[in-house]
């Protein structure tokens, strides 16, 4: 009997074959189109968040000069910037965007297991974004309670958006979680059940491992956000007191009584900390593949990298209260969470060592994705090290409400994942579009972004040491902050405006290259993993033509001694390895010059 792998047994595959423009590009069930839809919406909403951050920076840098935002809109900007960046941009782009695009291709499948559910996932995501954006246009505007949405502040009259704004935020989050669950069930089932013949779990590229474990984290962590959002909706809408304590507002007691705001914090951070790794693990995976490909070396310590991803995923559920040291917790409780926080640094550091050791004596190609990947190692190490400081209770207490924390989480969770996103976008752009991007423009984009973000966040650590408090609309005059701190703030703002403006280079590059870029061949980087071995570039619907691939090796056979070219694709058996005459990839080709 002819071999029919599980991934090719789906008779519905024909049924969702697009027959019109609408089914191909709008109501599409093709994972690649859905990935691009997810990515486009995520980047669009990310631009909104970027503009909000620039408005905040202009206020902070030049408080007397600009009159763009008032204190209320400052807090609304803080809240929306944070929530959009963490949930609606990073989570959506890493999992909805790259997860959707890469999982079926890297697993040698034709599509996700449940294409219809996948399509629904995107439309629910879009709905959640629209609900969130709608809060800009309702009376009172969006909520200004901070991205952590702590009660009772969320529901108090003094907080902007305490009525419609917070309701729309909670509704949007609930819809987002439904969207994520539909997508997440697809991702994990596809990875587990739709791998092509010969593709064991330990032959998967680390990108898939990162996305897979992050999805499992998301499936188990987002319920905590859902639970807290539902109870908070009840509190704000129906007048219950799950979280709301007895509060006197402007001399009048509110109807609430006896609720526990700390309970909300626990629930929120039980989601919030794994969320850090929901973003970080896919980034770890993607960067591992970019580094390995462009260093022409197998990833150092593949098994340890997989184990580290799993260990970090597990540990991420028992560190949440390190975000709550200042809430006043039992010292033993703080000690436990400080210990687990330091322990989670071990597998994380192991990954960093392995990335550096992958570069060691590699045949490094300094293409733009590699620039971003190496840049990521720097920013991640800096952000990670300050995390070790803040993981300790005694150091966290004085620094918690200062710009040191802002600098820390922006380095580790803002700049680092964004550098990975750019690395990955440039790296896989030729496969997704069939065109090469403009290498020179991409490198200028890198240097401006990389140096620019350091110009923003390094001085911010110093502001934190000075004791400059975060979350303030204007610092005003104090006894303990020297006037020179304001000069630093102004410098940071100029750097932030520069970095924000320079992102236009990325969009120019993408749109210019889509039309005028050099045609990319199927595997311009000489990559061994499966997604580069598709018969068509960009891959056609169904990805693999008539026959699914068979995998004979892992995804990192680079510079194999005795091989005739410096990579062996996963779907090439030992007997099929090309001879010197057949080789078509020139390892000495300088793609950076060829594409200029």
């Amino acid at each position, binding site marked *: 009997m002819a071999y029919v*792998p599980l991934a090719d047994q789906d008779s519905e595959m024909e049924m969702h074959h697009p027959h019109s423009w609408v089914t191909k590009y709008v109501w599409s069930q093709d994972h690649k189109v859905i990935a691009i839809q997810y990515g486009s919406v995520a980047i669009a909403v990310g631009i909104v968040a970027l503009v909000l951050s620039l408005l905040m920076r202009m206020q902070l840098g030049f408080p007397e000069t600009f009159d763009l935002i008032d204190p209320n809109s400052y807090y609304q900007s803080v809240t929306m910037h944070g929530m959009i960046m963490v949930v609606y941009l990073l989570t959506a782009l890493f999992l909805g965007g790259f997860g959707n695009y890469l999982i079926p291709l890297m697993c040698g499948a034709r599509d996700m297991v449940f294409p219809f559910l996948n399509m629904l996932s995107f439309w629910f995501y879009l709905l959640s974004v629209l609900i969130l954006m709608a809060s800009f246009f309702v009376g009172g505007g969006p909520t200004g309670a901070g991205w952590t949405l702590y009660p009772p502040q969320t529901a108090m009259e003094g907080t902007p958006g305490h009525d419609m704004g917070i309701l729309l935020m909670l509704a949007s989050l609930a819809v987002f979680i439904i969207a994520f669950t539909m997508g*997440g*069930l697809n991702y994990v089932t596809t990875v587990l059940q739709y791998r092509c013949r010969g593709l064991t779990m*330990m032959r998967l590229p680390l990108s898939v491992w990162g996305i897979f474990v992050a999805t499992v984290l998301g499936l188990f962590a987002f319920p905590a956000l859902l*639970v807290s959002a539902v*109870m908070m909706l009840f509190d704000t809408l129906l007048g219950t007191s*799950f979280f709301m304590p007895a509060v006197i507002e402007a001399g009048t007691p509110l109807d609430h009584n*006896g609720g526990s705001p700390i309970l909300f914090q626990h629930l929120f951070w039980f989601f919030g900390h794994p969320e850090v790794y929901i973003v970080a693990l896919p980034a770890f995976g993607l960067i591992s593949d970019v580094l390995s490909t462009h260093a022409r070396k197998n990833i150092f310590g593949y098994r340890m990298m997989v184990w580290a991803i799993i260990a970090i995923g597990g540990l991420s559920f028992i560190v949440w209260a390190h975000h709550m040291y200042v809430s006043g917790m039992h010292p033993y409780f703080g000690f436990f969470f400080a210990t687990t926080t330091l322990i989670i640094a071990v597998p994380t550091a192991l990954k960093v060592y392995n990335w550096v050791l992958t570069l060691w004596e590699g045949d490094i190609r300094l293409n733009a994705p590699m620039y971003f990947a190496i840049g990521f190692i720097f920013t991640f190490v800096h952000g990670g090290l300050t995390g070790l400081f803040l993981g300790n209770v005694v150091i966290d207490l004085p620094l918690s409400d200062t710009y040191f924390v802002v600098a820390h989480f922006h380095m580790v969770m803002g700049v680092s994942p964004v550098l990975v996103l750019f690395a990955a976008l440039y790296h896989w752009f030729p496969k997704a579009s069939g065109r090469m991007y403009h290498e020179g423009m991409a490198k200028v984009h890198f240097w401006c972004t990389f140096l620019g973000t350091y110009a923003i966040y390094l001085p911010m650590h110093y502001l934190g040491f000075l004791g400059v408090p975060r979350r303030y609309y204007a610092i005003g005059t104090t006894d303990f902050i020297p006037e020179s701190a304001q000069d630093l703030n102004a410098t940071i703002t100029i750097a932030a405006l520069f970095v924000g403006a320079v992102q236009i280079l990325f969009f120019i590059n993408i749109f210019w290259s889509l039309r005028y870029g050099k045609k990319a061949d199927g595997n311009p980087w000489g990559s061994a993993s499966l997604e580069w071995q598709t018969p068509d570039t960009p891959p056609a619907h169904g990805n693999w033509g008539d026959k699914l691939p068979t995998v004979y090796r*892992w995804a990192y056979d680079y510079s194999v001694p005795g091989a005739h070219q410096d990579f062996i694709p996963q779907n090439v058996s030992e007997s099929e390895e090309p001879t010197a005459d057949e080789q078509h990839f020139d390892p000495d080709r300088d793609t950076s010059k060829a594409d200029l």
Partner: protein
Amino acid sequence: MSLFKQLASKPWERKGVIGGLDPEGVFDTSPERVALSFFLAVASVIFSLFAVSYVIRMSLPDWTPLAEPSQLWANTGLLIISSILFQWARSIANAGKQKNLLTAFIGGGVFALLFIAGQVLTWNSLQAAGYFLTSNPANSFFYLLTGLHIVHLLGGLWVWSKSSIRLLSGGKPENLRLSIELCTIYWHFLLIIWLIMFAVLSNT
């Protein structure tokens, strides 16, 4: 090969096709069952977090326990019958038979609907007795948890109604075996959740 052995394997040493027709590590079951297992895990986390919140909130001084009405015992009986009928439908479908399949499968859903109606009646009687949503956190949790359970049941009933329509319009039982099986697993899960929830609500 066990999970640990798989994770300990050295992929750089092993060349060639590993595994049989499907690669190692693929579960010998349908993708739908795998997805349902993950969904049940997600739903368990949701209910567990509510349970933890319930216990923490219960320890605060304003908590006044709610005396659960006796109708809940009758409602529990309805849900148990519903689950038994689904199990019966599953056995018939697995045996490849048709007799009584319609009765068992449709009956299972109908009893679930009766359970929901019973829960709503319980809400009404509680309201009539002055136990309002906002009067005490114990009441709030009662309405919230039972409501959440109903929402999960409604999701199951949506899938059940689609399968029922296929069955009523002459769909072959062998084509519906998977749907019937998944519905049955889901119903048993929701019964277990309800029994735990009922025990917690009654004893606190």
